[in-house]
């Protein structure tokens, strides 16, 4: 049995809109339709898609907040919409934008309160608090009220709080949103450790493809309520022919850079923009450029999610079947080799 089983899941909303002076028309909006996937214990899955694609709706159904209108759903063998309270003991949830902690309480008190609410036994609780305090570097923050914490500190506190009852699954909704580069790196490191050492299954939504790249072996892309891709990230890039951009600042103005594996998109004085396939390593390209030219500075821009998804559509989904996508690893039509 898989840890998460989603079978033809659907959620539609009836939206009433004013049509004319008194009349109101009811429209049915399908936030999620015909969604099917499974997640095995220990997986780290990235769940991405544009705003309004149905990510939050899916997470809300997986956590039992929203009741589905169609399909079947099991998380750790539990039907979330029927046994929401039983499910809460098996899962941890972190909403990136808002805290689940108590605003006026120091972290230490929030943790103690959660221990009593989740009925975690004292020894296990102490062990967990110690572990997460060390891994997430919370030592100096334990006595600070949550409202005085910075966004990054609060996020770390929220994640520790969501893990005190040893959930099997951790849902993270935009965990790195608004964090600086260093905080993002440390958070990802922690999540990797959590997955490797405790076997916690992670499902995270994000707008940052770097999160996926560094954490997730698998990525699911949702758009207009349906899965458009389910598989490895590098194949997503291959399929969508998405490109990364190498921005080169030369010491002097020069003709367009000529190196294998990249094409110049734009030249502006000494600055040039080179694009190369997103599933290729940037290292050989950087080495080639640096060997042939006098380089003042280099930077790499990742493709953004909207761009990748647009490209998936532009190239068409083979056979129109989203489910087939994850299993046809060999044949990837339309990828230049």
């Amino acid at each position, binding site marked *: *049995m898989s840890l998460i089983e989603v079978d033809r899941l659907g959620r539609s*909303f009836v939206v009433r809109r004013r049509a004319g002076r008194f009349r109101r028309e009811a429209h049915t909006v399908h936030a999620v339709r015909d969604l099917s996937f499974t997640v095995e214990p220990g997986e780290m899955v990235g769940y991405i898609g544009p705003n309004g694609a149905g990510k939050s*709706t899916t997470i*809300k159904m997986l*956590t*039992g*907040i*929203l*009741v589905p*209108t169609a399909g079947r759903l099991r998380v*750790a*063998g*539990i039907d979330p*919409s*029927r*046994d*929401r*309270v*039983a499910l*809460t*003991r098996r*899962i941890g*949830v972190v*909403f990136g*934008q*808002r*805290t*689940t902690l*108590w605003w*006026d*309480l120091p972290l230490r*008190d929030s943790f103690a*309160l959660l221990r*009593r*609410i*989740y009925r975690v036994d004292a020894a296990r609780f102490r062990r967990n608090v110690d572990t997460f305090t060390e891994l997430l570097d919370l030592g100096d923050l334990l006595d600070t009220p949550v409202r005085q914490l910075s966004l990054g500190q609060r996020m770390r506190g929220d994640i520790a709080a969501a893990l005190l009852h040893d959930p099997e699954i951790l849902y993270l909704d935009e965990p790195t949103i608004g964090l600086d580069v260093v905080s993002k790196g440390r958070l990802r490191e922690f999540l990797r450790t959590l997955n490797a050492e405790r076997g916690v299954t992670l499902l995270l939504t994000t707008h940052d493809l770097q999160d996926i790249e560094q954490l997730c072996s698998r990525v699911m892309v949702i758009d207009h309520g349906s899965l458009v891709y389910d598989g490895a990230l590098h194949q997503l890039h291959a399929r969508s022919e998405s490109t990364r951009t190498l921005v080169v600042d030369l010491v002097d103005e020069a003709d367009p850079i000529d190196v294998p594996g990249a094409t110049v998109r734009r030249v502006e004085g000494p600055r040039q923009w080179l694009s190369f396939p997103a599933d290729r390593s940037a290292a050989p390209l950087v080495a080639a450029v640096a060997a042939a030219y006098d380089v003042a500075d280099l930077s790499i821009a990742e493709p953004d999610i909207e761009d990748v998804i647009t490209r998936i559509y532009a190239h068409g989904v083979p056979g129109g079947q989203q489910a087939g996508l994850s299993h046809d690893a060999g044949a990837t039509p339309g990828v230049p080799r």
Partner: protein
Amino acid sequence: MADALATVRRNPLSGALWGLRAYLILARMWVRVSLSYRASFAALTAGQFLITGLDFVGIVVMFTNVDTLGGFGLPEVAFLYAGSGLCLGLADLALGNIERLGARIRTGSFDAMMVRPVPLYAQACADEFSLRRLGRIAQSMAVLVWSVVVLDLAWTPLKVLAVAGMLVCGTTIFLAVFTLGAAFQFWTTDGSEAANAFTYGGNTLTQYPLTIYPAQLVKVLTFVVPLAFVNWYPSLYVLDRPDPLGLPAALQFASPVAALALTLLARLAWHRGVRRYRSTGS
């Protein structure tokens, strides 16, 4: 699969007991938070004592100009006033902040409540539990004791029981009204003012003898929004007053019925509201 289903089929009584325990855990935590700002806590409590006390001073001042109000003397009005105030105060203490539900829904923090293993109602009731509300209770209690001493009633066991019943049922009625107001916010997320009209506003109505109002209003307060059962009808019995409107004396013992009906209605509304939230997500 089978064992997972078995673990979730809990019996409702243990569920309710756990809800109560979780409520106490959360409430105690909020008390600790407020006590860490001792000076502000003391000021707020004293403030509530004085503000609600001022209400009663107004009534006393009124009685320097008149001897009776709607046919009732000052000690009797004080008894009515204190009965209503005490019931509202107890209900307000227990779940006064449930009115913040709308704000929680708007900001999305209601979702955070839904991923915790505690009944939502217990969490919503305990939200920012505050002992400063003891101010109103203390003030009403003082007025009640004063009125009982001055009235010098002919106490019988049944009258003592009637007073106790008045406090229990009256508090229950206000609890239900608070809950109804909160449940209403599942439909209109900024309806807390409408709810306040019935709780705090209801208290303002019932702290005077209902004889000062038109008979139609008294009937509304009896059969539609049954706030007259909080203190008016039980007090008529305790004060040995025939019903001024000539309504059946049985109403004077009907507070438990009103409290039960309103509780069931509130329970239904709350569950409907939660169900609506879970099917709209907003």
